[in-house]
């Protein structure tokens, strides 16, 4: 079994050259958490779907490992595969998702109002904001949500996010800008200076 200290590049080489499944299992163990966490965000908290997509991501990575040219770091490459899997799945489920989203938006508006009325300062307020933010994120388009997640949650630069999202840097910036405008509207109740935003 591959020890945890072995570099990614060496594990990848073992998989490519010797079809070393233990080495691949070590890579999966290393990156399952960030990939699954990102997919959970992208799927707006649908853990079962996120884990299915994560499994698909790692299986695709295994099949295509020979084509990995180290032009990006291995986890960034994995995020790219995961994002593609999510967007492809979202396209397939578009009709179904759009139907569900109408209900979610209505619920979320109610929740946002409630949070702004009842939440106090400190920890409780932060937890409420986090919850509202998650719900507001669910109302974004898949591309906008993916851009926000890559830039803020995975802490990627716009260039890295463009690689992961397989689109130009300008498109990433546009998605982030539009997403933030939508989030600002959805979370207007949380704005400490509502007059400045007006």
């Amino acid at each position, binding site marked *: 079994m591959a020890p945890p200290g072995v570099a990614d590049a060496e594990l990848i080489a073992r998989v490519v050259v010797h*079809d070393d*499944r233990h080495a*691949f*299992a070590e890579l*999966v*163990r290393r990156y*399952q*958490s*960030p990939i*699954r*966490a990102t997919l*959970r*965000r992208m799927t707006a908290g649908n853990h079962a779907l996120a*884990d299915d997509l*994560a*499994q698909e991501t*790692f*299986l695709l990575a*295994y*099949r295509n490992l020979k084509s990995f040219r180290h032009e990006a770091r291995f*986890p960034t490459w994995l995020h790219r595969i995961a994002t593609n899997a999510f967007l492809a799945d979202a396209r397939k489920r578009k009709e179904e998702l759009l139907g569900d989203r109408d209900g979610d938006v209505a619920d979320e508006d109610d929740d946002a109002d409630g949070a702004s009325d009842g939440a106090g300062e400190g920890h409780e307020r*932060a937890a409420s*904001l*986090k919850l509202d*933010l*998650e719900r507001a994120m669910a109302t974004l388009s898949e591309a906008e949500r993916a851009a*926000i997640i890559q*830039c*803020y*949650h*995975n*802490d*990627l*630069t*716009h260039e*890295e996010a463009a690689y992961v999202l397989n689109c130009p840097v300008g498109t990433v910036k546009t998605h*982030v*800008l539009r997403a*933030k405008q939508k*989030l*600002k509207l959805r*979370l207007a109740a*949380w*704005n*400490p*200076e509502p007059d*400045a*935003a007006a």
Partner: protein
Amino acid sequence: MNTDPTINTPAPAANGDSDWLDAALAADGRSHREAYIDDSGFTARLTTALPAPATLPAWRKPALSALWAAAGLGVALALPTAATDVARELFRLAAHPVSLLEIVAAIAVLGAISWGGAAYVLRQD
């Protein structure tokens, strides 16, 4: 991914009224990166789902050998003069008289190579 929040994070919006949203997104991002999802059998399930290792059928090696032999025979038959020339040269070299000096020189060279190789293999860095 960058662990230093001051580097490579997207620039906050120019207008100050988005600062609170940037701060909220940054805080949410930090908690996202710090959270660890337990494996809980994910890796084990995935490794069982990996495609079966590619194994060559038992007949492949003898079939390939037969094909190479047939190809070699075909080339030999296609170039009969070349084959006979090569065979004649091999016989001529084998029949070439070798002097005692050449035998000694060959033994010396082989011995030097053997000793050198052994010394290299048994060296202690």
